[in-house]
């Protein structure tokens, strides 16, 4: 696996027909910065201790009650193959909705909401981790921070639970 050195083709990452600004929610977990499309985010809420789920993948921390709906909570860092983040009252839950399904992502902190011209999104270089490549959709450099653009659908695919 080598890192691509050729010219970057931003369009290839997103398809050529997105000249407008895209808005992202920027957050940080385990010291890394990420962003996801704001259209998938329903709300951001404080930490609630989830109830354990049996027979669940390790990255599924459990379920919480979101105004009557039971939603699973996924540790994003763990899901991305990093280690699990420490349980902390200051963690936040990003509630995402994907189709009919609502899922919470636990991250350390939400930092910004960012508008980025689609042309500024850089493609993902070759990665050693297939796991990561499956969920990364691009990179954004913003004020010296490297934001990893995640594909929520790939992270919370239908395989989250059978």
């Amino acid at each position, binding site marked *: 696996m080598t890192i691509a050195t050729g010219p970057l083709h931003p369009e290839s990452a997103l398809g050529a027909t997105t000249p407008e600004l895209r808005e992202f929610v920027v957050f940080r977990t385990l010291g890394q910065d990420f962003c996801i499309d704001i259209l998938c985010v329903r709300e951001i809420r404080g930490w609630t201790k989830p109830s354990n789920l049996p027979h669940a*993948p390790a990255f599924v921390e459990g379920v919480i009650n979101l105004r009557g709906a039971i939603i699973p909570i996924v540790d994003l860092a763990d*899901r991305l193959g990093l280690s699990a983040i420490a349980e902390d009252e200051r963690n936040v839950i990003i509630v995402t909705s994907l189709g009919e399904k609502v899922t919470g992502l636990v991250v350390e902190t939400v930092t910004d909401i960012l508008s980025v011209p689609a042309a500024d999104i850089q493609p993902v270089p070759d990665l050693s981790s297939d796991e990561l490549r499956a969920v990364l959709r691009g990179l954004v450099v913003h004020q010296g921070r490297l934001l990893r653009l995640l594909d929520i659908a790939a992270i919370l695919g239908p395989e989250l639970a059978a």
Partner: protein
Amino acid sequence: MAPATDLRAIFFEEAEELLIALDAGLRRIEGGDSGGETVNAVFRAVHSIKGGAAAFGFANLVGFAHSFETLLDDLRSGERAADAVLVAALLDASYHLADMVHAERSETPLDQAVQQRAHEALLAVQDAASQRISIEVPFAAVPMEFAPLPVAEKLFTVDFAPHADAFSAGHDPALVLRDLAALGRAEVTLDQSALTEGFDPSQCLLRWRVRLETDRDEADLRAVFDFIAGHCDLSIREGGADAAPAGREEVSPVAEAAPRPATPARQAAPAETRPEGRPEGRAEPPAPPRATIRVDVDRVDRLVNVAGELVIHHAMLAEAIVRSGRRAETDVERSLDQLKQLSRQIQDSVMAIRAQPVKPLFDRMHRILREAASVAGKQARLVIEGETTEVDRTIIERLADPLTHMVRNAVDHGIERPETRRAAGKTETGVVTIQAAHRSGRIVITLSDDGGGINRDRVRQVAVERGLIPATAELSPSEVDALLFLPGFSTATEVSSLSGRGVGMDVLRSEITALGGRISIASQPGKGTALTISLPLTLAVMDGMVVEAAGQVLILPVASIVETLRPESGAGHRLGAMDPVVELRGICLPVIDVGAALGFRDAPADLAGRICVVVERDDKNTVALLVDAIHDQRQIVIKSLEDNYGHIPGIAAATVLGDGSVALILDPVELLPGRSLLKPPAAPAPAGTARPPIAAE
């Protein structure tokens, strides 16, 4: 175009109701009631469907409905008698009409050949029978019984004069007048002549004359005055005020000129705005339709959800108040109690909105039975009991398939062929009975037939052949019957198109189990078979026992709990290395540690200090579930886990506790070691694998 779509939707909804009315009417005709009103109702239903269909340009539907109508018209005009041939043709036609409506609704055209055949069959009956009537029955005019025309409205004049002490006796004439006005159209005249300046407002000095047009009789009118009878002068006469004997004491001259407009009295207003009373007392077979509104199911579901939230939040509020130490303030406590009652009432009422009688579902089975019988070459009729039993609509919807299956099974496997039945001394027509009843918070539906019963020798033989049981197994008759529920079991020697593909009973059972129900079978050789299913009344709330295992708060459905016991140290025995058992009154029950079964911990070595909850499985097997503590028993609101996550083996659903946290509801059936204990817990997510790690199954 939205409006057109709306109209279409309304047409189909109405057509659906008309089809139900049509079916009910035809069945009454089948039962021998070919009275004018019944035939008229059937005719009207077909006619309305035709009219609506014409408006939307459903040409096939209009054509067929027209022929149908013609046939019904012959019946209505008395040209034809409602004989078996005609009734069968009418029923078939109604089924086909229903199919056509459904086809238009789903926009999937029916097979032309099928349509052609149905239409030709209808026309054939029309021709053949009309000939037959002209030949065999020269006096074609068949006497028809016409139901009495709607009773003409009668005019009553009611003079009502409460005594002066009526108020102090606790009566309110306004209420009486309101009830009276509900019986029909009322014109109320107030006589206030007794009111003098400075009158005593605690005394009732008013009198009323009511001209009431109603279809009720005098006794109904008198019944309105039952309570106040001792405190008023009352006269009820039939006919207008003019016909009244003049100069009755309690009638004042002012009120005598009755036909003139009512004095602008307070009571007149409510009386006139009241809708016309419904004829309830008449002994007509169909119950009078009650006022109903159409509501989008989603709206009701949202209401159910919010009502559930209300209950949860009440519990949260109560806990918060306890924590803040304000419980001692009695007014807080009282308000809280009232809030609790109100929220419970709201929840009950909301659930009642979703409750529906099982009648439409059961009525559909007539058709299933008829078709099944004709395919199988058997004769059968359906008897329905307890069709007014109500159950949540979500359950009704999901019962249709299992019930269809059961009816087909009863016809295919239960009812014998006519010649066999005759030889056995039974009537040639077999009877399939569906009964519904409420029993201790559940609905119990029994489907029985008077057929040959289960051939236990054959069942046993097949089970041995398929290796389901060892040849030497000793089974009680009911155990043999229960073999039918094993996957892949079918005794039908030939596979028929109705049933007998061997996917029958076990699928049926899993469908019922998925609804939180149980199914059992009972059979008497030569006398018949009965399948009994018992279901919760709703899928939204249930009684649960709050238990704790491995530090997790979990809910056990109370319905499945037989008893709880606290085993003494050493009470548990071990079979081999794993499988602990506990002895309960001489019976050994397998013990399942809930914490271990869910992968939260390793099974504990000793049962002491823990609690065994004995639960019953569907097939009457009992197991003991080992938990650490029992906290509470309460009504819980069932929340789906599958909406946002997925199915977890051993977990039926989830609920929200008083503190807002989520507790999982255990499914005792799936918690069995064979199903879940032996399943390795999901491996932790290995980083960097090609495919994202997924949950076990």
